[in-house]
């Protein structure tokens, strides 16, 4: 069975290490915060200017001045810090954020990512995505393996306008976990009940199956 969104998020959460500073994008990445392993302390960065993002506020305690990069009302935690947008992206660019998790429309076998623009559709903008993918030191993409038409999103080359070049290090899809290497996609885990053949069939870019490939534990 392909993973559901919660399971993808849960698997990504296993990548978190104690002391990590993490930026979680909108969508599946946001769900990662719900599965942070016991004993692992991470600090969530919101690129609009906050380190130490807490949970949503209780009803009636929303504050218009306290939002995340998705414009949702949030809260702080002990040790939180506010700063301006230049410092926020400065710390990302300087490699201080350990991990960035974001969604994608396409990823190429060389780690290019497309996630901001579809030609002939209204373009809303890249927001912070181009900064994050260009500058974060470790990027994991959380996405469905195929698009709604059933076409692979892991491609030899991206067909959509790029967000960044050669930056994705790892993909967790509904079908498995893939390292993005100099030799293309390497499948290191498959989802429970998903066969290697299915993964091969649904991956258009260059794919290698790791010798020690294993079933994902989620």
């Amino acid at each position, binding site marked *: 069975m392909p993973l559901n969104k919660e399971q993808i998020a849960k698997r990504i959460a296993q990548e978190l290490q104690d002391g990590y500073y993490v930026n979680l994008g909108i969508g599946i990445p946001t769900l990662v915060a719900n599965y942070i392993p016991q004993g692992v302390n991470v600090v969530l960065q919101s690129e609009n200017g906050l380190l130490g993002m807490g949970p949503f506020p209780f009803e009636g305690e929303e504050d218009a*001045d*306290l939002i995340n990069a998705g414009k949702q009302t949030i809260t702080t935690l002990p040790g939180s810090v506010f700063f*301006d947008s230049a410092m926020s992206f400065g710390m990302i660019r300087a490699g201080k954020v350990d991990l960035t998790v974001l969604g994608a429309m396409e990823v190429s076998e060389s780690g290019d990512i497309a996630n901001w623009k579809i030609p002939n559709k209204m373009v809303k903008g890249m927001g912070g995505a*181009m*900064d994050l993918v260009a*500058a974060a030191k470790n990027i994991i993409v959380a996405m469905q393996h195929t698009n709604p038409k059933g076409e692979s999103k892991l491609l030899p080359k991206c067909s959509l306008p790029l967000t960044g070049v050669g930056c994705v290090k790892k993909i967790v899809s509904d079908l498995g976990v893939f390292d993005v290497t100099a030799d293309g996609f390497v499948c290191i885990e498959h989802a429970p009940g998903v066969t290697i053949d299915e993964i091969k069939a649904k991956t258009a870019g260059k794919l290698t199956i790791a010798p020690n490939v294993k079933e994902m534990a989620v």
Partner: protein
Amino acid sequence: MNKVVANAEEAVRDIQDGAVLMLGGFGLCGIPENCIAALVKKGTKNLTCISNNAGVDDFGIGLLLQTKQVKKMISSYVGENAEFERQLLSGELEVELIPQGTLATRCMAAGYGMPAVYLLAGYGTEVAEGKEVREFNGKNYLMEMAFDSDYAIVKAWKGDKMGNLIFKDTARNFNPLMAMAGKITIAEVEELVEPGELDPMYIHTPGIYVHRIFQGKDYEKRIEQRTVRKK
């Protein structure tokens, strides 16, 4: 030294048609509500607005779009606005999309007197078109220019009569960066106090960057995505 003006109308009095404005805020958080209203009232046309977002249909910069006062938006994300989309598709409105960190850093560069900076964002994408690429330590950077704007319009939580500003929580965002970057910087504040009432160690924007300041009124501070959990 007299930076205090009576209200938003007086603060924006000399903004001419065709001016380039920076407007602080992220989404609807920390936007200069009073000055936007005054610009709508004044009817200044053909504005170029540098602002991370373009508001929503009936709030924020969306109000200036409704009245067709904006010629060009320079933003990172302009998603939440139907009138914006209509004007863009009809060719009435020009839009330049810039990565968010690049937008922020180009403001900062202006405030620090640095004419250009090298940034990673956008290398290898359409954002890089026409820009100088330069390699440092094996990575490719784009040369990005400091913004040149006529007015920066920011919203602070507290300010004193010498123009020193403090921003609340994530309403800080682009505000202090733009405050540094305007040829003329206008600050509207929720609470205007006497010099000496703000602790000099904890001021986000030194008054030297601020030319006009006034006590704003009737802040709506609309929430764009109200999300809560149950008690």
